[in-house]
């Protein structure tokens, strides 16, 4: 299978996503915004539908729409400060509703293409997507290295971050935008329905395995690489959908680590 060009690109994409996902996933979990990835992926569908309706490459309309929604998410999070998950519920439903309306307005072809965005197609990745992912990975890893310390404080305690003079609102908005752009780029590959699982699960697993902040990121990357690559192989061998196979592999790792931790009281 390694001799097929499409599989080589699939492995390259999986590897790059594995380097990105645990970084974003950890910060989302610590900010109690795990479902934000889900919201943005639902909203992404609206972006895709808009692109198809007006005849523009859906990736660009998608990126534009998620940037707007990422800002809106932070505004709503501030308005409903005590119940910040309301912002997620509002925008998730709104995103899905807009997507369905736009799909209804456009012809049946759009509905067909939407299936690819809903479920993803890791085996139809083209060169351009690989380059976009590589560029995105370099940016996210560089931003993590540069802004690791301010983000650590922000996710530990917002009041402490504010007192330390950090621009917490701007940081939150920029982080949301970065998450949105990542989802817009990853979504055609893994699918809107599973993109949040792939972002959140590696960090959720490693959170239980490491004592330190950097340790969580590093273990998360290793887990993501193992989960993504073995999920991909499983998908090839069994003929199952790649996104679902990767998610189930990560769930299996989650179950094994939980049981091992319990049994050996680690």
């Amino acid at each position, binding site marked *: 299978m390694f001799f097929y060009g499409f599989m080589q690109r699939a492995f390259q994409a999986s590897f790059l996503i594995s380097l990105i996902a645990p970084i974003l996933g950890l910060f989302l979990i*610590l900010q109690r915004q795990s479902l934000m990835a889900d919201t943005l992926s639902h909203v992404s569908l609206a972006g895709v539908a808009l692109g198809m309706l007006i005849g523009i490459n859906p990736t660009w309309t998608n990126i534009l729409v998620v940037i707007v929604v990422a800002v809106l998410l932070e505004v709503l999070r501030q308005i409903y400060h005590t119940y910040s998950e309301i912002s997620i519920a509002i925008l998730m439903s709104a995103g899905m509703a807009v997507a369905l309306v736009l799909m209804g307005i456009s012809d049946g072809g759009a509905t067909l293409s939407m299936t690819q965005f809903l479920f993803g197609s890791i085996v139809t990745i083209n060169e351009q997507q690989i380059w976009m992912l590589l560029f995105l990975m370099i940016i996210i890893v560089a931003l993590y290295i540069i802004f690791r*310390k301010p983000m650590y404080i922000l996710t530990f305690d917002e009041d402490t971050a504010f*007192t*330390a*003079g950090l621009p917490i609102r701007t940081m939150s908005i920029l982080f949301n935008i970065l998450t949105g752009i990542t989802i817009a780029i990853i979504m055609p590959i893994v699918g809107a329905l599973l993109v949040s699982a792939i972002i959140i699960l590696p960090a959720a697993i490693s959170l239980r395995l490491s004592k330190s*902040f950097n340790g969580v990121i590093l273990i998360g990357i290793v887990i993501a690489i193992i989960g993504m690559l073995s999920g991909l192989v499983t998908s090839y061998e069994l003929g199952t959908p790649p996104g679902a196979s990767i998610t189930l592999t990560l769930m299996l790792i989650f179950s094994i680590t939980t049981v091992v931790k319990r049994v050996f009281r680690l």
Partner: protein
Amino acid sequence: MHYIEVEDLSFQYENEPVLENISFKVEPGDFVMLTGENGAAKTTLLRNILGLLKPSKGNVHLSAKNYLGEQLVVGYVSQQIASFNAGFPSTVLELVQSGRYQRGKWFKKLDKHDKEQIRRSLESVGMWDMRFKKIGELSGGQKQRISIARVFATDPDLFILDEPTTGMDVNSRKEFYQLLRHNSMEHNKGILMVTHDHEEIRHYANKHIELVRKEGSPWRCFSMDSCKELSKPHS
């Protein structure tokens, strides 16, 4: 110069006034204790000073510079800090060293001086031996200690502390107050601390602000009794 200048501050939640006519100053070298009964809006007052809440009337001025003309560094220990998320992935050492980031180390490596300050801060609260423990595995009292160690690691010009000694034993409290007094008297640090132990602290602090219920007010509204100068503590 004043690190904190509060002028005729009032604050209300929705339409309910909780603070009225608060005025006081904290200067470099001041150790000010802020007391009041439960629900006297002491934390609300601190949050107004820090800019986390906006006063409905009056002004709060937090100096931008310290007495040496450098940027003022504020160290804040909130009341809830010790109840932080037990699952937060950090060792004690990582958390305490994050206190140094404010000292111009957001984008720089910590140097020898930073590491020495971190070690001394952890030793001062008896937590050096536990530096590699995950913070979620600590008891409530230990979490309180590392919150204090973190603020000492920052070595701020102005300490703003909200009941920082909750859950600490008498000896630890005494050592902590002595350390604060040393910081205010020898290093000209400003300290504003909310506390219930005013009998204990009055031997260390030099000013006492008490928030008292406003007479004739229909709401639970508090105002200042006075800002009393206490007898100057001995170094």
